[in-house]
């Protein structure tokens, strides 16, 4: 099998996965969730009036019609109108996705920026107290649930010292309009400090440990012994030779983490009132807002799948040992 046919096959598989997920979701939601108009009763709507609203939402059509309509629209990137917001779903999803991605990407970059060199360094100091302490701290933040560390951070920095804002993305109200003018402000950065810190600390553990462990493996390889025999300085061996060869698993983990980032960390978004996609999907499911819930989830799934695909492609490029089976 050539590389090209392998790639085509993988892309087709990805599309297939996405279709399965879309179908699964569509039926799960329709079967499992209550009628989206149920809440209108408390507003005083009678059954006929509710039926009219259902018709507006396209829910009076037979299920298979709704399904095919959903699929054909989804293919064209058209996700319909949100039941609760009465606004195009695509706009809402992109907006929330952007909020989530900013938070997550910055946190991931920080986590890997610190975790990778730190892991390499710890591997060098293997067995020492520093090594144990490093592992301990990395694992500790990995073990503490983020909603808890977030709450504690809010208590310390927000309530106790009151030096950092604890909720939302910016000080309200504001004059800026448009996405970038709203984001490229000091105020936004200020609001992002706590949530980014919490997510970054959580993610820190995995690059750190993966890097450390792969480095330890790499040290056993022949070419390191060779380098050492040549009398190269240890620092050079560590960063030029060993680290470079140990990066692949870390990069893989990075790609997978970014893929999952679209799903966000729902709890972080909840604790810090961050208007991200994770919180939105929770609300959408709770209010039976089918179009919004489906689209949010599909976007997340698409993200995960494409990043996984990227990892595979990366492997075929970087690691010649992988066969195209």
């Amino acid at each position, binding site marked *: 099998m050539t590389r090209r046919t392998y790639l085509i096959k993988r892309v087709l598989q990805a599309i297939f996965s996405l279709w399965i997920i879309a179908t699964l979701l569509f039926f799960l939601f329709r079967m499992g969730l209550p009628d989206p108009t149920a809440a209108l009763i408390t507003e005083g709507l009678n059954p006929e009036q509710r039926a009219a609203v259902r018709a507006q939402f396209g829910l009076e059509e037979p299920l298979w019609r709704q399904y095919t309509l959903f699929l054909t629209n989804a293919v064209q990137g058209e996700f319909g109108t949100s039941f609760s917001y009465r606004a195009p779903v695509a706009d809402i999803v992109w907006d929330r996705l952007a909020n989530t991605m900013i938070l997550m990407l910055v946190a991931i970059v920080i986590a890997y920026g610190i975790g990778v060199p730190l892991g390499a360094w710890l591997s060098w100091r293997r067995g020492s107290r520093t090594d144990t302490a490093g592992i301990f701290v990395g694992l500790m933040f990995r073990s503490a649930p983020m909603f808890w560390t977030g*709450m504690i951070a809010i208590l310390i920095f927000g309530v106790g010292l009151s030096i950092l804002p604890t909720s939302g993305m910016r000080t309200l109200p504001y004059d800026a309009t448009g996405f970038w003018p709203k984001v490229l402000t000091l105020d936004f950065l200020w609001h992002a400090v706590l949530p980014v810190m919490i997510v970054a600390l959580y993610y820190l553990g995995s690059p750190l440990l993966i890097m450390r462990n792969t480095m330890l*493996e790499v040290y056993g390889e022949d070419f390191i012994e060779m380098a050492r025999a040549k009398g190269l300085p240890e620092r050079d061996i560590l960063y030029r030779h060993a680290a470079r060869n140990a990066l692949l698993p870390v990069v893989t983990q990075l790609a997978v983490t970014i893929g999952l980032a679209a*799903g966000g960390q729902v709890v972080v978004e909840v604790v810090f009132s961050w208007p991200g996609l994770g919180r939105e999907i929770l609300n959408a499911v709770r209010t039976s807002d089918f179009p919004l819930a489906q689209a949010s989830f599909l976007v997340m799934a698409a993200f995960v799948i494409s990043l996984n695909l990227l990892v595979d492609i990366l492997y075929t490029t970087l690691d010649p040992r992988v066969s195209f089976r």
Partner: protein
Amino acid sequence: MTLPPFLRAAAGPLKLMVQDRLAVIGMCVLGFIIAMALFAPLLSTHDPRQINEIEDGSVLLRGPDGWALSDSLGPLALNDADTAAGEALIVGREGTVWARDGDGWTRRSVPTDADLNAVAIGPQGGALIVGAGGTILLRDGDGWTAIPAPAPAELRGVAWIDAATALAVGAGEEIWRIDTAAGTVEEVTSPVGRGFSLNSVARDVDGTLLAVGVRGLAIRYDPDTGTSLERLGSSRDLNHIHIAPGGAALVTGERGTLLRRDGTDWTTDPAPDTRALRAGWIDDDGRAVAVGRNGIVMEWDGAAWVLVDTESERHLRALLIDGDRWMALGSDRFVVRLAPPSAEHWFGTDHLGRDLYSQNVHGSQIALLVGFLGATLVVLIGTNVGLIAGYYRGRTETVLMRTVDVMYGIPFEPFALILVLLFQPSLLIVILAVSLLTWRTVARLIRSQVLSLRERPFVKAARVAGASDLRIMYLHIFPNVMPLVFLELAIIVGVSIIAEATLSFLGLGPPQSISWGGILHDARLSGAWRTAWWWNLPPGILIMTTVLSVFFISRSLEVVANPRLRARG
């Protein structure tokens, strides 16, 4: 001694783990948590769901800095008090009577253990106490004698008409005229006659008496002409009436009802709090105070009622104003809310007065149950799928691994949330939500191991020897992937515990179960988590240490599964 191969495989890791200090610590901590879960009912000091309420003979004293809690008068609630001519009496539940004795109080014995609801000291030193079950007690020298009642009525209020007669009112609209000299009781007809409760009675300046009760009921009793209905301008339940010698009067009632008489007209004052008021006091110089449920004290500043700071949650039922000594008395059962750690409640209490130490102890059960059950399920599915896919290859493998691929496309956390929302939270659903996606990793890992193992000579040899597929898979290949299985098991236990905590934190945990995430959920939901540190810290620390200990164990298992790490580590 020969062990079966899979046991031998299991013994190896154990030996290695014992050498790893972190892993030993991890095992100890985990052992401790497991013990906590197993013996939770024994270890807890309280029922974790019980709303802890206590009754107390509470006394609040007005000082220069507001009303402060003073020494308690025993464990029984105080219901009423009266003072005259230098003496003071307090009555309470189960036959409690306290008399002032210098600066302190001494308990007086009475011939009843019924709940005593009201006390009145008469113009010539006579004293009457009334209470539940038609209790009427008349002071007789140093002791008390009971006056027989015509019915076992719940008497709520009493007031003297003159030196020898008094009027008692009760919960069944009873109006009883008590002749203390003769020791007899005469029933007076009420103008309403619907059995509405009368809660308090006081003697007015003109010699008549005014009783108040539920639904704004006010009945005037004239010793000469009998009873008549009066309107005070409220339909709320009225709890207490106090009339000053000069004619100022104050009626207190439910929902912050304050009816004040200045001269002859009753006015309804706006109250700064809408909770129930149980007792009031007013004098003719424009001073007034009212107390009520949940430690409410209001003072009249000449123009409006002002809520006074008290740090007490106790229910106040009576006032004892004697010169400059102002006392508020209570307290029937009140909730021990948001109490900081104490000898009674080691980790304090939550917003409903539930014991947090016991909750945390019980929380370990759900965490470990979901953690281990979920992880076992995951490993069971994952390992078998991996084994089958890797061993059989071909179409079986394609189908299984495509399924795994699809699952890899589903983000874990949102999916788990949706699953729980779709099927309503229950323990089963939470475990399923935690495990339904996680087995994908295990399946992939095991499969790739099996792929290389099945080409090894010992497998080929077994096949040649005619061993069945099942036998080869489970007796020959499986023991070799055991270290990996254990490693995954440990990691997934940690992941599952966090996942369960996350679901519970978002309010999607199994209902009526106590879990660490759920405790934090309650803390955040109640809004009290910013001050009640004893509510936030323990569950988070417990989650962290449990997961951390599991990770330590898994780390040393990793060395087992991947011998290359051992080389220099």
